[in-house]
């Protein structure tokens, strides 16, 4: 049983991970080559060996593509070198970002689902609001994020809330769209059944529409939770002076510390993947008995 799982799940991951690592090192060699050669040229080193070249390419101070071991050692150093609450510990920044992302996600889920319900249940909202919900998403966040931060800052909200609001702005949309679709996907015959019971809107919603919308909802939630992390990071850029993975990305970018950028990137990817995974876990827990269908 256990070895079976190992074979079917871990082996492929391991094989693919190895392949990706190999590609990565090759890529690092390739992308960093011009810099290395430039370095050799400027140092007038005419005779260099291939191993010397590789060693250099894999240990550039400002690599175009840092190697995984460079990133790993930077991360280990940051994670173990300082207490968790220290500003130089990456986990501290991850927690800051996760905090605003999750708050925003929570708000986004509530807003997204409420909007979807409104759109599905109230005809006026459907025809007049939906197009504007869509339009709202075509406004680039990065452009309005600073204004949101400034305006909310002046009303007296600073710190977590402006960031959460931007997260929410990004993640309510996939939820609304997915839920609208999902809530309308209930089987017409099942809807008729509810009608014959003269179930009220709420009962139809909880007993039929919501269960049939769940596959759509969870697909959207996975996208939304990833978007909420993006939102939190975007929101940390204008307030670049403060904490969070976005601030790390920004300052890394500003000071050309590629390795720092990449470790923040890896950390944010890990953060969203684990959040997506959590949603998947919830999905498995919530969506039961939905496999066969009729025969």
């Amino acid at each position, binding site marked *: 049983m256990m070895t079976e799982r190992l074979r079917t799940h871990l082996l492929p991951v391991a094989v693919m991970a190895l392949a990706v690592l190999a590609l990565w090192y090759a890529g690092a060699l390739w992308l960093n080559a011009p810099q290395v050669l430039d370095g050799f040229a400027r140092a007038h080193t005419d005779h260099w060996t291939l191993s010397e070249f590789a060693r250099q390419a894999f240990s550039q101070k400002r690599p175009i593509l840092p190697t995984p071991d460079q990133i790993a050692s930077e991360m280990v150093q940051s994670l173990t070198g300082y207490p968790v609450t220290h500003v130089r510990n990456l986990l501290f920044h991850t927690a800051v970002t996760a905090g605003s992302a999750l708050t925003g996600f929570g708000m986004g889920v509530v807003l997204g689902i409420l909007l979807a319900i409104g759109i599905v249940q109230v005809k006026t909202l459907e025809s007049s609001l939906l197009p504007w919900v869509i339009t709202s998403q075509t406004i680039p966040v990065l452009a309005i994020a600073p204004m949101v931060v400034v305006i909310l800052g002046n009303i007296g909200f600073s710190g977590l809330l402006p960031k959460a609001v931007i997260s929410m702005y990004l993640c309510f949309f996939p939820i609304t769209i997915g839920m609208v679709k999902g809530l309308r*996907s209930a089987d017409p015959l099942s809807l008729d059944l509810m009608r014959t019971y003269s179930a009220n809107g709420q009962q139809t919603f909880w007993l039929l529409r919501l269960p049939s919308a769940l596959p759509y909802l969870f697909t959207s939630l996975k996208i939304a939770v990833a978007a909420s992390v993006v939102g939190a990071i975007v929101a940390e850029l204008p307030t670049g002076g403060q904490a969070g993975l976005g601030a790390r990305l920004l300052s890394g970018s500003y000071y050309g510390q590629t390795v720092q950028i990449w470790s923040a990137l890896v950390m944010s990817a890990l953060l969203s993947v684990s959040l997506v995974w959590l949603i998947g876990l919830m999905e498995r827990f919530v969506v039961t008995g939905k496999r066969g*269908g009729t025969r």
Partner: protein
Amino acid sequence: MSKTTRSEMAPWPLVMLIAAPLPLGLLDGAAIYWPQAPAVALCYAVSLLCLLLRGLTRTPRTEAALLFLGVASACLSPFLLLADGVDPSSGAGTWMYLFGASLLLWRVLALLAEETGLLRWLGPTLFGLGLLMGWEIITRGFAVPSVLLPPPSSILAAIPTHGGELWDDFCQTVLKSVVRGYLIGCGAGFVVAVLADRLPFLARGLLPLGNLASAIPVVGIAPVMVMWFGFDWQSKAAVIVIMTFFPMLINTLAGLATAEKIQLDLMRSYGAGYGKTLWLLRLPCALPFLFNGLKINSTLALIGAIVAEFFGTPVVGMGFRISTEVARMNLDVVWATITVAAVTGSALYGGLALAERRLTAWHPSFRKR
């Protein structure tokens, strides 16, 4: 067809009656009342008259038109006040009047919700106009500095005066970066999802890594992509590819899983191979999900391109325009660019929604409301 019994109107718009005794605003430090502003009083009378005459209308359309007149004259009043040099920001009467008018607008929208054909678009248009009016009234009424938020009228004025720039930006960002990035990104997400669905080994190995890679936020990728692919559209397209990949992947995978067991059994009983089953059964089943992904991506792609342009561009592009004009305090140009982005994005989305309606007319979500 429909049982057109018009639902009764809730009495809420009548809150505008409360406005009558309240002041309209301040002029030279003194409160202004209705008799001192005859033009506004006339608007008010028109609004009330529309409410009164509503009972005489026969069809929802005529009622909507009549009530809209009432809303329109309410919207006119703050501008009349401003033209007379009155500061309406502290005039409770003005705001109460406008509040009643917005409730009235809601009624108009409800009446228009049943429309079909081209008139279907009247509702959302009025809703949008209402939002813009509110924005105009608030920015002008409260004298919000234009470096914070310009009123829509000045944004509108900026569009023709900066038409050339806006068009160049559109070409650079949309035609070069977005189109290519979107096609490649959605295509790749789709193909990888199908492959992953086909080859479980690949799926189990690649999906976690794929998820990891595509979970990297745009703002983080953009500088890296600029580093790798240079300043021109290539780096923007790369950002879009990465951004759109994940939603497409997830949606395609979810869509491919929706075929019912009995439908799959049917295919099996025909000895239909993988390709046939995919083409004839699983893809049609997945279409609603595919469109879901395509629609979400259509908005993401535009955002991605604009965000990526914040991190270095040639001196053209919508992201470039927004970031530089913000710093130059030309907020009207910024919002004009945002408007172009919004119109483009909505058009893209609308096109996809139309295609969806055509291709998945069988889906319960379109079949029955």
